[in-house]
């Protein structure tokens, strides 16, 4: 079904258009919105775009990095100062999807997608959102809990660079193509274990302030699935998902993979 396409020069105008029209969706790389349109999603009546270069900007020189919502995964992989995000960016799709998919769009990708968001959750990122009321920064956990109700446009995502290369480890666990998701920074994050990405806070508590020895790792592995509600699907059963989390967390923390 044809829809109306509106392209704006500024993110502010695009945010206003999104806020004023319930049938409007922002199109970044197209991997979510075009897919919905191809499926015949009649809830979408207007596609909103913005040609604002600020959405494509990466500021990674300092200790805190800010990534424009329109930055693609391929651009992240090409940015030397974002080495800590290369593994999560590489774990997404194939080359074409990485050339198209954006950091901002990934925040709205539901399970089993949204792996990059899992990394951002582990990094305790903040999300800059422009709405009719102006721009504001929201913690990523709060953002994910309310993303379906978010009106406006995501402008950028910011996070602190990990203190060392070893302080942030990312593994994506998959039965199809072992490319790398659970994430550790003293935190484990569990996609496919709940309706939205969530932090494994019990595992975090088991790790925080303790030496990374066998006892601590066992305690974290045992606590990793607390508070999760995985579901069965064609890729894996809920039982399997629950079982593997502790196994892979143990391997990751032990440096076995």
């Amino acid at each position, binding site marked *: 079904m044809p*829809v*109306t*396409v509106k392209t704006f020069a500024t993110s502010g105008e695009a945010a206003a258009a999104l806020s004023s029209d319930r049938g409007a969706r922002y*199109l970044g790389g197209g991997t979510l919105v*075009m897919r919905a349109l*191809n499926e015949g999603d009649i809830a979408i009546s207007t596609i909103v775009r913005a040609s604002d270069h600020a959405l494509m900007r990466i500021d990674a020189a300092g200790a805190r990095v800010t990534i424009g919502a329109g930055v693609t995964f391929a651009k992240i992989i090409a940015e030397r100062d974002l080495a800590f995000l290369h593994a999560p960016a590489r774990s997404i*799709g194939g080359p074409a*999807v990485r050339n198209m998919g954006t950091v901002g769009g990934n925040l709205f990708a539901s399970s089993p997608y949204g792996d990059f968001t899992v990394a951002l959750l582990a990094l305790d990122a903040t999300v800059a959102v422009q709405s009719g009321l102006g721009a504001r920064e929201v913690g990523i956990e709060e953002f994910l809990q309310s993303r379906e109700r978010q009106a406006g446009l995501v402008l950028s995502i910011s996070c602190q660079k990990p203190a060392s290369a070893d302080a942030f480890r990312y593994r994506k666990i998959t039965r199809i*193509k072992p490319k790398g998701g659970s994430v550790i920074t003293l935190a484990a994050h569990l996609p496919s274990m709940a309706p939205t990405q969530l932090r494994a806070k019990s595992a975090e508590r088991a790790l925080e302030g303790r030496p990374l020895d066998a006892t601590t790792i066992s305690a974290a592995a045992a606590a990793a699935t607390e508070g999760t509600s995985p579901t069965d699907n064609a890729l894996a059963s809920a039982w399997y998902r629950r079982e593997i989390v502790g196994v892979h967390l143990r391997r990751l923390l032990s440096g076995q993979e």
Partner: protein
Amino acid sequence: MSKSALQFLHNGREVAIFVDGGTSLLVTLRELIGDMTPKFGCDQGGCGACSVLIDGELHLACLTLAETVSGRAVETLDGLKDGPNLHPLQRAFADNFAAQCGYCTPGMLMAAKALLDRNPSPTRADVVEAISGNICRCTGYEPIINAVLGAAAGGRTRA
């Protein structure tokens, strides 16, 4: 809903058409321009059969909003051959029996071209990664990987 005017380079030739809002590049190429080389597979970005190059970068035509290629260069398999002469990649696919039903082949070739344009001497792992978004359900991937490596080796010999 009104139509939008759209101009872009299709395999080096300028095209100017009108598209309905929300039309994908895949539908634009196949139904409005008549280039049937990008294949209609999953329409969800999962199979890679519709892979094309946009300004030299690999993209999925099914997930590309037609309006976003305004003023840009789109390359499809149809632009690969030179008259009756096959492109070295096409020749290598034929020589290595890298096509069986052939439905994935246009996407595979464009993914391979994107790789070789950027990296003329890829490793086997580079080739595997380059075609990791393209699904083949009958040939198997080995002949395809061998064909891309063969084309790369041939290119080095020719140079």
